[in-house]
């Protein structure tokens, strides 16, 4: 058979939780220059379902953490992203994208306005793009200070039990609102905790100093509701939640409007512009799109993978799958991809070409599994 993983010889960076992953029987794979756990002994399906039922602990230390600071930091960051950053209240977090001049997505990120008098913005960016993102920030916002927090680990605790589990170690986290951030003291260690994630569930992202990361993870794992979750289930969970993966569902060619991310561009920014690609986004919002990212439900059991062509009933190619796989919570395959606008309405019947054979697929609303964010 083809494509079995083989031993990696290249040198990979390790996260502060590397030894824990190995001890827990993880299958380590190269990802964005890091050795990362794709799954543990339980397997992707069990890890996925555990996260939906209880609480999953993810090591996402490969992602970039940084603080951008200086006078007018919020206003200046707005030159690079389409979200309203000036209007972001202290301790609040927002999802946005670094755009290129053509309105394509260089990367997507989370921005938090840190509490305090100084203008300080915490940024969390994708692992694969972090060096490029930081270079972009330094080049374009050279009068601001960029501190990369590469001595800190990042973990996500996600699932309906996440709040109860984390509150046992860090009392008070249960009161943090969705898309909010707070610093906590855990036995003398400063944690940065936001109530957000990438699974569609309630949960947190927790920034921990690297030296304390393993101890903190072990304390979480001592709770029987917590299971370590690898990148495999992280991907299936985010796909069920309809969330985009940069480099796949969004890239330097796709705009946030095409990707269905218009919700992340607040009214003032739509009106005023002032970010790269503003003309394209304004045009797409006013005149409509030529293509749109949609969810796809497959009639059969065969998964459609990234790159599979989407065709109309007459056989004409009208789009392409950008993420696809088996949805453990649904027990069947799902996918998302871009289609021409005439085929983007929910209920549109298409075909997806899997190994040369057209299989029936239907456009559906995303998310595939309802979000269960904490709405306090």
């Amino acid at each position, binding site marked *: 058979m083809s*494509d079995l993983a083989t031993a990696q010889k290249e040198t990979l960076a390790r996260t502060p939780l590397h030894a824990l992953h190995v001890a827990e029987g993880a299958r380590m794979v190269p990802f964005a220059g890091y050795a990362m756990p794709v*799954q543990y002994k339980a397997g992707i399906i069990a890890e996925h379902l555990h996260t939906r039922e209880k609480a999953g602990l993810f090591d996402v230390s490969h992602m970039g953490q940084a603080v951008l600071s200086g006078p007018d930091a919020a206003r200046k960051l707005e030159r690079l992203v389409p979200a309203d950053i000036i209007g972001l209240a202290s301790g609040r977090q927002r999802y946005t994208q670094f755009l290129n001049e053509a309105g394509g997505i260089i990367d997507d990120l989370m921005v938090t306005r840190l509490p305090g008098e100084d203008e300080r913005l915490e940024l969390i960016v994708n692992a694969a793009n972090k060096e490029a993102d930081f270079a972009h920030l330094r080049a374009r916002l050279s009068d601001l200070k960029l501190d990369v927090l590469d001595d800190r680990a990042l973990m996500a605790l996600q699932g309906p039990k996440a709040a109860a589990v984390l509150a046992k170690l860090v009392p008070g986290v249960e009161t943090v609102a969705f898309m909010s951030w707070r610093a906590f003291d855990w036995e003398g260690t400063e944690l940065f905790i936001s109530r957000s994630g990438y699974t569609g569930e309630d949960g947190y992202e927790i920034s921990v100093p690297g030296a304390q990361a393993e101890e903190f993870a072990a304390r979480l794992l001592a709770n029987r509701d917590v299971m370590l979750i690898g990148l*495999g289930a992280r991907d299936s969970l985010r796909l069920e939640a309809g969330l985009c993966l940069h480099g796949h569902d969004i890239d330097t060619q796709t705009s946030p409007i095409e990707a269905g991310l218009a919700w992340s561009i607040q009214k003032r920014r739509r009106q005023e512009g002032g970010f790269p690609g503003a003309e394209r986004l304004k045009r797409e919002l006013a005149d409509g799109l030529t293509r749109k990212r949609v969810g796809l439900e497959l009639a059969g059991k065969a998964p459609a993978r990234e790159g599979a062509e989407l065709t109309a009933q007459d056989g004409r190619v009208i789009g392409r799958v950008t993420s696809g796989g088996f949805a453990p919570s649904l027990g069947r395959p799902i996918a998302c991809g871009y289609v021409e606008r005439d085929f983007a309405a929910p209920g549109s019947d298409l075909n997806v070409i899997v190994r040369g054979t057209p299989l029936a697929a239907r456009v559906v609303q995303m998310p595939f599994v309802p979000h269960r964010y904490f709405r306090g």
Partner: protein
Amino acid sequence: MSGIRYTKDHEYVRLDGDVATIGITNHAQEQLGDIVFVELPAVGKSVEQGAEAAVVESVKAASEVYAPLSGEVVDVNKALEGEPAKVNADPLGDGWFLKLKVKDKSQFDALMNEAQYNDFVATLS
């Protein structure tokens, strides 16, 4: 000589008379993880040694299963359509993929025996 033979692509073949039962090895199912879909060939199809005979899909990815021998497909494991996880649970038993009526048994004898295959797998980690 009867028994079980293995390929470097992690398929196994069990030969009974001139009928070969083919599946993927325990090592293969471990590496793939949870199997969610198996695509099997049509009964009556002729396959050549080394050609794609089936497809196995894990949560993450699709992999081709190659025919370890040439022959005609005489049976496929339809139970895998409803329960692909049988490949994880019992790859050498209930998780078989297909049966071939073989043309040339010398192809079987040339494959790795169990000891050779185990040595081969040991070199991969």
